């Protein structure tokens, strides 16, 4: 009994001397284990949450148990029951125990009997358990139990005091850590006269003064001269004295005169009687932020100015592009009302063709958190469309999320018009340059080409690059190169040139004549910037000019021959008729025939003369074309050589004249058939014409023999045609009338030129 009382006394004494909870609890375990003779005892603390127990202290237990083991506050455990019941639970022999589960570590440690006694803190808060363990079955008698209850009753307040002390210590430690550790906050204390009494490390870091330099100094040394002049230090302290605290947001002075912007406050400190005994001054150095804010304000002002002079509309939308704020400038730009603008109404102001594009731009910008830079049309207040350049940037919050977007519209209608005009005119010019048949090129410094049109490459086979400088000379005919270069020599003085030379065609490998012209392009000062040139294919023109020369010569030839023919005919005619009226008539008719056939020949180059045309020409001249059934003209399309036409026409004229005067066309019952066909002989295309008159036997006034007049026709058939045309001819006069055949070369191809 005495031992127990002594143990209680010893513990109380120990507990008063020690502020260490662990040491106090360990001592408690030792004393109780000694008194009860178990050698083993421990304190189990209920952990936060109330679902587990922690072996807080103990004696007679291994170090890997004490301070280490946690066990769940099992429903079927004796510990739990003791806590819930609020009274000691004794287990005399664990081997016999059936009420409670026993933790494994206890069995392993050979515990046979134990006593659980709850520990209560003031206010009926359960702290945990005092557990006394015995390795032998043991009956904890009433005395033991009573002792344990008394012991834990003393233990509760001791633990409570120590726990509170622990919390305070931690808070103090934390405070010290914050106050002394921080360098961004300047913290110091002053006395009632505002002289510095405590100078913490943050204050030294911010203001630069050491503790020794700062202590005893009036706090006013930290104020700027301007503020001191205004009595700012006194006003601030008096405000704090009266109102408990005062803001301290102003520029301060560091050691050495530098300035630091402090965002802080002054708090009054009171003694137990409520009298101000000093001031706590805490402030944060926000100089950098202050400077950047000033810079920001400046740049904002600058931007506003810039935007105002650039942008037609300035606006803000939320993170998703939804309009939540009014934008008067947008409304002025588009004519939308506030209601139309808010939400997603701005889409309606975009041209229908570009809404999908604008929406896609938005979506991509939001996804990429990037800038928006898009161009599309928006409606103007007057209903017209104008081009706008939208630029928007995301504004991010502290966590990097998009807070909102700020954007603006820059009107680019004028620029677009200029662009289009340029594109249009460039396109037109290119179309023109590349569409014309001429080879187009540009040159500088005289003859150095800098560009050749696709036509040049297509014609010469020379690449555009290869034509540069004097490369263009390569396709020029070697004989013509001096001419081509000589033209350039005079170009500068003459202000251009025009020259003809030959250029090789890659497709045919032959040279064609080109007329090349160059004209200077000058700058504003009249200096030649470059030369623009064209080369026009004049090959066909030259060929035409040549053939025209040939034609003129041919015409000359024909005309002179014609006169010679006329003279010959006149001589022949006079020989036949003598210088009589008959001569005049016969010559007149023959010259008319000659004249008619000239009409055909004059068009022969364009429209080759057919045999049918010659036959009809002569028959029609006699009115025989209208003789109905009596005259039959039939044959395929046969073209005559130009050299053949005149002689043949004159021969047919004589035949027709004779028929009119004496033959088939001189009476109603006569018939004339002029027919022809083509055949080939010895590879030569020839035609066979038959002139057959019938019905002479029926003529009312038969004239026998045929008068002299027919003689000339016969001469032309039998002599002139063979002589001039290589014709084979027959001429027979029978009882029924004239039968005549003419076999002569025809013209193979009407569209092939004939050599004169």
């Amino acid at each position, binding site marked *: 009994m005495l031992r127990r009382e002594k143990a209680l006394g010893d513990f109380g004494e120990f507990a008063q001397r020690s502020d260490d909870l662990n040491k106090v609890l360990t001592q408690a375990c030792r004393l109780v284990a000694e008194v009860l003779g178990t050698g083993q005892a421990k304190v189990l603390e209920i952990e936060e949450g109330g679902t587990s127990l922690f072996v807080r202290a103990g004696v007679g237990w291994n170090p890997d148990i004490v301070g280490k083991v946690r066990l769940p506050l099992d429903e079927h455990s004796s510990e739990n029951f003791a806590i819930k019941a609020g009274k000691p639970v004794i287990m005399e022999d664990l081997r016999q125990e059936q009420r409670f589960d026993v933790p494994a570590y206890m069995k392993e440690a050979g515990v046979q009997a134990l006593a659980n006694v709850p520990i209560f803190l003031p206010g009926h808060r359960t702290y945990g358990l005092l557990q006394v363990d015995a390795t032998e079955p043991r009956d904890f008698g009433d005395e033991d139990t009573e002792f344990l209850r008394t012991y834990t009753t003393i233990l509760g307040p001791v633990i409570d005091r120590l726990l509170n002390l622990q919390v305070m210590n931690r808070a103090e430690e934390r405070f010290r850590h914050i106050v002394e550790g921080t360098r961004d906050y300047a913290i110091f204390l002053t006395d009632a006269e505002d002289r510095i009494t405590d100078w913490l490390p943050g204050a030294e870091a911010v203001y630069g003064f050491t503790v020794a330099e700062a202590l005893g100094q009036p706090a006013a040394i930290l104020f700027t001269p301007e503020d001191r002049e205004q009595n700012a230090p006194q006003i601030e302290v008096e405000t704090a004295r009266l109102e408990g605290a005062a803001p301290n947001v102003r520029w301060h002075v560091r050691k050495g005169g530098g300035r630091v912007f402090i965002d802080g406050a002054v708090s009054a400190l009171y003694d137990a009687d409520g009298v101000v005994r000093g001031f706590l001054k805490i402030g944060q150095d926000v100089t950098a932020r202050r400077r950047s804010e000033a810079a920001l304000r400046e740049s904002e002002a600058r931007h506003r100015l810039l935007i105002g002079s650039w942008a037609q509309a300035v606006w803000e939308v939320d993170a998703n592009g939804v309009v939540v704020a009014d934008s008067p400038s947008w409304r002025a730009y588009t004519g939308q009302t506030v209601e139309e603008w808010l939400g997603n109404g701005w889409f309606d102001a975009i041209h229908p063709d570009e809404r999908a594009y604008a929406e896609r731009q938005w979506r991509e910008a939001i996804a990429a958190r990037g800038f928006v830079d898009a161009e599309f049309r928006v409606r103007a207040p007057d209903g017209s469309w104008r081009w706008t350049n939208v630029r928007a940037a995301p504004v991010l919050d502290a966590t990097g999320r998009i807070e909102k977007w700020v954007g603006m519209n820059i009107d680019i209608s004028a620029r677009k018009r200029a662009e289009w005009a340029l594109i249009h005119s460039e396109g037109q010019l290119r179309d023109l340059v590349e569409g014309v048949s001429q080879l187009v090129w540009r040159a500088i410094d005289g003859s150095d080409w800098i560009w050749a049109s696709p036509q040049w490459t297509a014609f010469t086979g020379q690449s555009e690059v290869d034509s540069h400088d004097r490369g263009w000379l390569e396709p020029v005919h070697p004989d013509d190169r001096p001419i081509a270069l000589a033209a350039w020599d005079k170009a500068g003085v003459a202000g251009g040139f025009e020259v003809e030379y030959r250029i090789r065609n890659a497709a045919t490998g032959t040279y064609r004549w080109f007329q090349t012209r160059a004209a200077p392009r000058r700058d504003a000062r009249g200096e030649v910037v470059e030369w623009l040139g064209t080369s026009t294919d004049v090959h066909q023109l030259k060929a035409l000019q040549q053939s025209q020369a040939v034609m003129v*010569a041919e015409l*000359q*030839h024909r005309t002179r021959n014609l*006169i*010679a*023919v006329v003279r010959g*005919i006149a*001589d022949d005619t006079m020989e036949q008729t003598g210088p009589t009226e008959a001569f005049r008539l016969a010559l007149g008719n023959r010259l008319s025939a000659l004249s008619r056939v000239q009409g055909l020949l004059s068009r022969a180059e364009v429209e080759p003369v057919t045999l049918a045309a010659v036959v009809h020409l002569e028959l029609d001249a006699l009115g025989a074309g209208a003789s109905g059934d009596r005259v039959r003209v039939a044959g395929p399309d046969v073209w005559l050589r130009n050299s053949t036409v005149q*002689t043949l026409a004159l021969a047919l004229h004589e035949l027709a004249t004779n028929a009119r005067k004496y033959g088939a066309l001189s009476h109603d019952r006569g018939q004339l058939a002029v027919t022809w066909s083509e055949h080939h002989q010895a590879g030569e295309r020839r035609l066979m014409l038959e002139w057959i008159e019938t019905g002479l036997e029926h003529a009312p006034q038969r004239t026998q023999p045929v008068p002299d007049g027919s003689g000339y026709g016969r001469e032309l058939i039998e002599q002139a045609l063979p002589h001039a045309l*290589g014709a084979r001819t027959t001429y027979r006069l029978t009882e029924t009338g004239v039968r005549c055949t003419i076999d002569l070369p025809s013209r193979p191809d009407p569209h092939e030129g004939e050599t004169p």
Partner: protein
Amino acid sequence: MTNAQGSVTGKRVLVVEDDYFIAKALARSLRAGGADVLGPVATVADAMDLIDTEPLDGAVLDINLRDGDLVFPVADALTERAVPFIFASGYSSGAIPERYAGIVRCVKPVEADAFRALFSPAP
């Protein structure tokens, strides 16, 4: 129509001309001057036949003959035989090779006086 100098009288003159009427007129004109006309012929082949077979004193040659033939082979054959000749052509210039530069060229219709050049020293 003719005088002693350059007269065609009694001369054997070849006429090469493909146009029937002109050939006939040339022949008539030469005959009127007392010449003995050979031909007229319209082709080089016929002319060559006569040159090879008949004695000749001179010739009147049209340049463009039938079928596009040119008379120059005939002219060369005559030059070879030293037979004088003149050209009668519808063309006022050109188309005559350089080697015939010394040959008198008449433009049709040929005047009878032109034949004198055949038998006179060149002017």
